[in-house]
C-alpha cells in the first residue's frame, strides 16, 4: 500500500480495532460482573462505584508496593467489599435496589476522592504490553488481538468461562434458577439469599478488576472519577447482551470500537467533532436496546422484572 490516504485509513482501522479490544476490557469485566449479579435477580447500579474503588485501590497499592499483581488483588477485594454493602441492603434488607446502587456509587465516589488524593499524578509502570509469543508476531491479527496486557487477555477468557459456567455447571444452573424464581429454587433445596450474596460480590470483584485494568493497564494514572460512567454503560450492555456472556463481548467491542475509532480519527485530524463521536457509544447502546427490546423482554431474568419492568 503506497497511497497515503489508504495508509491513513489502514492505520486508523488497525489502531481502532486494537484499541477496541483494549479499551473494551475494563467495561467487559464490569459487564460480566453485572451479568452474574443480574442472573441472580439483583441489579447493581453500584457497578460504577465498584469500578472506581477498583481503579483507586489497584493504583494505590501498585504505587505503594510496586507490585501490580497485589494492586489487582486489592482492586478485586475493594470491589467485592463495596458490593457486599449492596448485597446486604438489597438481599437482606430488601431495600430499593436502584437507590442502593446509587448510594454505593456516591459513597465510592467520595471514598476514592479522599483516599486516592495522595496518588493523583503518581507515575507507575503498571501492567505493560505482554505480547503472546508467535501469535503476537502474526501480521495484522497479532497486532489487534495478541499484543495487550494480561488483564485484557484474561477478560476474554473469562467471558468464555462464564458462558460455560452458566450453561454447563450445577452452580450455574443454581444461579439462573435463583434469578428466575427464588421461591422455586428455595423449594428445590437451594439457598437463594446466599447465592444472591455470592453473585453480587462476584460482580463487585469483576468490576473492581475492571477498574484496575483501566488505571493500571490502560491509562497508567489515577484521576478522581476516572471511570466516567463505564459502570453504567456496563449495566446497559448487560441488557444489550440479553444476559449472555458471549454477546456481552460483542457489545463491548462495539462500545470499545466507537471509543477507539474516535481517538484514532482525532489523531489523524478529521474534522468530525470529538464530542459527537463520544456520543456514539451511548446512542448506539440506546439504538440497539430499542431494536432488540422484544428479545430483551423475553430474556430478562424473571426476578428482575419486579425492579426493572
Amino acid at each position: 500500500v503506497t497511497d497515503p490516504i489508504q495508509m491513513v485509513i489502514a492505520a486508523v482501522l488497525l489502531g481502532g480495532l486494537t484499541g477496541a479490544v483494549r479499551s473494551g476490557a475494563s467495561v467487559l469485566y464490569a459487564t460480566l460482573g453485572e451479568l452474574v449479579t443480574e442472573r441472580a435477580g439483583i441489579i447493581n447500579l453500584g457497578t460504577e462505584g465498584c469500578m472506581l474503588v477498583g481503579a483507586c485501590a489497584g493504583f494505590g497499592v501498585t504505587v505503594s508496593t510496586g507490585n501490580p499483581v497485589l494492586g489487582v488483588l486489592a482492586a478485586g477485594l475493594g470491589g467485592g467489599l463495596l458490593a457486599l454493602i449492596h448485597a446486604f441492603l438489597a438481599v437482606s434488607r430488601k431495600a430499593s435496589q436502584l437507590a442502593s446502587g446509587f448510594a454505593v456509587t456516591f459513597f465510592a465516589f467520595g471514598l476514592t476522592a479522599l483516599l486516592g488524593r495522595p496518588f493523583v499524578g503518581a507515575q507507575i509502570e503498571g501492567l505493560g504490553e505482554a505480547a503472546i509469543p508467535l501469535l503476537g508476531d502474526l501480521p495484522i491479527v497479532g497486532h489487534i488481538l495478541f499484543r495487550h496486557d494480561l488483564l485484557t487477555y484474561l477478560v476474554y477468557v473469562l467471558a468464555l468461562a462464564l458462558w460455560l459456567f452458566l450453561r454447563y455447571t450445577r452452580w450455574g444452573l443454581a444461579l439462573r434458577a435463583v434469578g428466575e424464581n427464588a421461591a422455586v429454587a428455595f423449594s428445590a433445596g437451594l439457598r437463594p439469599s446466599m447465592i444472591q450474596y455470592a453473585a453480587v460480590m462476584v460482580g463487585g470483584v469483576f468490576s473492581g478488576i475492571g477498574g484496575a485494568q483501566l488505571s493500571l493497564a490502560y491509562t497508567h494514572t489515577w484521576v478522581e472519577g476516572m471511570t466516567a460512567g463505564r459502570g453504567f454503560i456496563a449495566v446497559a450492555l448487560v441488557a444489550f447482551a440479553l444476559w449472555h456472556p458471549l454477546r456481552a463481548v460483542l457489545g463491548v467491542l462495539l462500545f470499545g470500537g466507537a471509543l477507539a475509532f474516535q481517538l484514532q480519527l482525532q489523531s489523524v485530524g478529521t474534522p468530525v467533532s470529538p464530542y459527537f463521536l463520544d456520543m456514539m457509544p451511548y446512542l448506539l447502546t440506546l439504538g440497539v436496546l430499542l431494536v432488540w427490546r422484544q428479545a430483551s423482554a423475553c430474556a430478562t431474568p424473571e426476578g428482575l422484572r419486579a425492579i426493572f419492568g
Partner: protein
Amino acid sequence: VNLSLNPSVIIQSSVARLAGAILLACAAFGVCLAVIGKDPFAAYSAILSGALGDSYGWSELGAKLIPVVLCALAAAIPARVGLVNVGAEGQFYGGALVATSVALNLDMLPGFVLLPLMLIAGFTGGALWGGIAGLLRIVGLNEAISTLLLNYVAVLLVDQMVHGPWKEPGGNNWPFTVEFVPAALIPAFGDWRIHFGIFLPIIGVAVFAYVLARTRWGFEMRVIGGNPEAGRWSGLPAAQYFLAALLIGGGLAGLAGMAEISAIQHRLRPGISNGYGYLGFLASWLSGGSPLGLVGACALLSIIVVGGDVLQVSAGLPGASVNILMGLILFCVLGVRRSGPSAKAAKAEPAIQTPPAGSPLDVVSAAVGIAPNASMAQVDGVHA
C-alpha cells in the same frame, strides 16, 4: 395485633427511624474523619456553621436548593406513576442548552420578554430530554436505562456547543459562551447568590402537592404507580401519564438548568450541574414521594453539599469527600427503613374481584388502599 398498621404509629416510627439512621451515618462519617486524622467535631461545626451560621451560608443554601428541589421534582413526579427517572442531570443540561440558544440569539429583547422566553425554552429543553425517554418507555424500553444514557448525551452536546459554535470569540480559548446580556439574567436578592429563581421550586412543590392531594390527576397517578393492574382495569391511560410525567419532570429539571446559567453562571459552560440531577433523584427517593418530605430531603442534601465546599477550605478535604457522608446516610436509611407494613397491607388487599359497581375509581381507591394524604411509610412501597 400489629400496632404498626396504625398510620400515626407508622409516621412516628418512620420519622424516628429516619432521624436515627441519619445520626448513625453522621457518627460513622465522624469515625472516618477521625481515622484519617481530622477532628470530626470541628468538621461538623464547620459544615453546620458554613451552611446555616450566617446570611452568606443561608444564601448559598438557597441557591443550591433551587436546582436540587427542581431536579427532585423531576424524579418525584415520574416516581408517582411508577417510573424511575434518573435523567434529571441530562434534562438539566437540555434546559440550559435551549435557554442559552434563546439568550444568545434574541439578546436584543428587553428582559421582561427575554426572561419568560428563556424560562419557556429551559422547560422545553428539559421536557424534550425527558419526553424522549417517555416515548421510548411507551414503545417498551426501560426508562431507568434510557434516562441514564441520555444524561451523557446531553453533557456531550453542551461540550460540543461550548467548544464549537458557541465558544466566546477571542475568549482565550476557554470553553464557554459569551456572558449573557443583563436582560437575560435572573436578578439576585441584593448582593447574595440566592435569586428570584427561588420561586420556581416553591411554585413547583406547591402545585405538585396540590395536584397530588386534591385533583383527579393526582389520584389517577397514584393508582397507576401504586397498582398498575388496577389502573389498567379501570381504563386509565397509563401511557399518556408516563409521557406527561416525564415531560413535566424533565421540564422542571430544564428550568433548573436555565436558572443556573441565567442567575449563577451568567453563561453556558461545561460542568454547571454539580450532580444536581443525581442529588434530586436521591432526595426524591429519600422523601418517599411526599412533597414535604421532598423539601426536607433536599434541604438535608443541600446542607451537605454546601458543607462540602466549607470542608474543602477549612479541613483541606477534597470537595467530593462529602459524598461519603451522603452514601452513608443513604445506606443507613435504606438499612433501617422497614419494607413497609402498609405497603404489604396494600398488596394483601385483593385486587378488584367483582366488576366495579359505582365509579371505577371508587373501587380502585379501595383496592389500592391509598389515602389522599399518604404517609411516608405508605408511599414507601409505591416508591420502592
